[in-house]
Structure formats: structure tokens, C-alpha cells
């Protein structure tokens, strides 16, 4: 694969970096990244990964754009209200960078389709808004052996962590199961400061690019929590749990299932 003169210009500030170079830019051009959710976190991730020249971006989302999405979901414009997010997303990605191939999945990720879809990608980015889906993505990436960049945002707080299956702590090592539904408030009730999606989604994209390039230290075995009110990051070291039901020595989870109620919500603090 050879770059055209235009591509060399487009990616020149990447190619100048010794850690990327022409070789790294080719890795980026061959890479396939799946964004589960084309919303708050998926929007900045999609735009920056498209700009970076990622070869294939997969977008999975069953929703249409709603007016309430637009304060944070910058992949979608006012004129997109009512249109499928994957269609709107593909247009923006390709307007930014026509080199990028976009695969659209206008559906929810489920225990039935997850392995088949995830199997086609090198890295998965979690941009979903409920715990059932977050656990499903974690489990599916474990079974498929794919690195996952997990993200979450709520109110003024955000979190990122990278999970490399069988090498670093998974989401279940820490949280085991979704919170009891009675204790969870819906996202609509909770609210979120829109810019937080940009901060956390962009860190997720950074992690994905590092994984593709094989450079730096991934955000594994660390939770990076961001407090927007204080403008403060806090890193919490975590470890693999030898008793993890998924990735521990004696797993009890041996196939995908939908853990909890996907409509239960997303709130965090009691």
C-alpha cells in the first residue's frame, strides 16, 4: 500500500512523529475500529479517528438523532434530527476524510450479534449509555480477544480505562455485575455537561490510536477519572481479580448474555 501525494500531505504531521512515521501511518490506514454507540463518546472519537486516517470505522447504533442529543453529540447537526445516527455519522466522517471506510450497523449490540460484529475489528470503543451494554461489550471483547477502550460520563464526571483481555483487569474484575436496577436513575434524570463527552471520547480515541500503533503505555490496570468541576484527573490502580467470573481462574461466565435491564439507566452516585 502506497500513499498518494495528498495523503502524505494530509498525514504529514503524523508522519513527522518518530513514533508514527510512514510505517505507523500505514498501520493506522489498515486498522479497523468499532465504535459501539455513535453518540456522546462516539462523536469525538469518530471525528478524530477519521481525521487520523483510520482505515475502517464501524458505527453501531440503533437510534435516530434527537434534539436533546445535540449539546454533546457533535457528529450530528441540527439538520440531522430524525435521521439514523449511523447514516449521519458516516456522512460526517467521510466529509472529513474520504479515505475512511465506514461500516454501518443500525441495530443494538446484543448477545446474539456482538461476537460476529466485534470479530471484524482490531479495537473496540465503548460509547454506550447503559450498564447491560457496558458489561456485554466487556464480555464480548474478552471472548473475541479484542482490546477495549471503556468510557463513561455522567453529570460532571468521566472515566476511561483500557482493557486488554487476559492481560489486564476487565470491567467485571472491578464491578462484577450491573448495579441493582432500583438504585439506578435514568440518564435523562441525571444529566451531563456536554463538553465532557469531548474530553473522555477524545482520550478513548487516543488510547485506540496507541493500541493500533503499539506505542506508549496503555491505560490498562488504571481507571482514569475526571472531575470537570475541579478540572482534576485521578488515577486509580486496579488489578485483575483472580476470582473474576469472566476472566478469572475458574470462570462462571462462559458465554454472552444480557446482564440486567438495558433500559435501567446510567446514574452513578447513591
Amino acid at each position: 500500500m502506497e500513499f498518494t501525494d495528498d495523503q502524505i500531505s494530509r498525514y504529514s504531521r503524523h508522519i513527522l512523529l518518530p513514533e508514527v512515521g510512514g510505517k505507523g501511518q500505514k498501520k493506522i490506514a489498515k486498522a479497523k475500529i468499532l465504535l459501539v454507540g455513535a453518540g456522546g463518546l462516539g462523536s469525538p472519537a469518530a471525528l478524530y479517528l477519521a481525521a487520523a486516517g483510520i482505515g475502517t470505522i464501524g458505527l453501531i447504533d440503533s437510534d435516530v438523532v434527537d434534539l436533546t442529543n445535540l449539546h454533546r453529540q457533535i457528529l450530528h447537526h441540527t439538520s440531522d434530527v430524525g435521521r439514523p445516527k449511523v447514516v449521519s455519522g458516516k456522512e460526517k466522517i467521510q466529509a472529513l476524510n474520504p479515505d475512511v471506510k465506514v461500516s454501518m450497523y443500525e441495530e443494538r449490540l446484543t448477545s446474539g450479534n456482538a461476537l460476529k460484529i466485534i470479530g471484524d475489528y482490531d479495537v473496540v470503543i465503548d460509547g454506550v449509555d447503559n450498564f447491560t451494554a457496558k458489561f456485554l461489550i466487556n464480555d464480548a471483547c474478552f471472548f473475541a480477544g479484542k482490546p477495549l477502550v471503556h468510557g463513561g460520563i455522567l453529570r460532571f464526571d468521566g472515566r476511561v480505562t483500557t482493557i486488554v483481555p487476559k492481560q489486564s483487569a476487565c470491567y467485571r474484575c472491578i464491578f462484577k455485575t450491573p448495579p441493582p436496577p432500583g438504585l439506578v436513575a435514568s440518564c435523562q434524570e441525571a444529566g451531563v455537561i456536554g463538553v465532557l463527552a469531548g474530553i473522555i471520547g477524545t482520550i478513548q480515541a487516543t488510547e485506540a490510536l496507541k493500541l493500533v500503533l503499539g506505542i506508549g503505555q496503555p491505560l490498562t490496570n488504571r481507571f482514569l477519572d475526571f472531575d470537570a468541576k475541579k478540572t482534576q484527573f485521578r488515577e486509580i490502580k486496579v488489578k485483575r481479580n483472580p476470582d473474576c467470573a469472566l476472566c478469572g481462574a475458574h470462570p462462571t461466565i462462559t458465554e454472552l448474555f444480557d446482564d440486567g435491564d438495558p433500559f435501567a439507566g446510567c446514574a452513578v452516585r447513591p
Partner: protein
Amino acid sequence: MQVKINGKAEEIAGGTVLDLLQTKKIEPQMVAVEVNDIMLDRSHLGTTSLKDGDRVEFLFYMGGGR
């Protein structure tokens, strides 16, 4: 005695991790707790006593993203 909770020094009366959660009105089902970088099983919250200088991390669930 003094412990560090989420990086911040706090004076507490002592007791178990579960006592601390109850003082702070935190529902044990809504949090993962690390003491000195070791993740506690929820069944051990009531049997793990805190000592002066312990570092406690509360990791709350954080959904959201779409």
C-alpha cells in the same frame, strides 16, 4: 484516626469499611471499594477493619456515554 479517601485525608472514627460506607450514606451495592490498592469483595466489607494511614478508594459505577 486518619485515612485517605479517594486521595483526600479524612479523620474517621475507625471500624470496618462497611461502617465507613454507612457513615457516608453510600449504598454498598453501588460502589467498588479498594483498600491499599486491593479490591475488596463486597462480602468482606463488614469484616475489613480500617487502620490509621489506610488508602481507601471508592469506585462508583459510571454509566452514560451516548
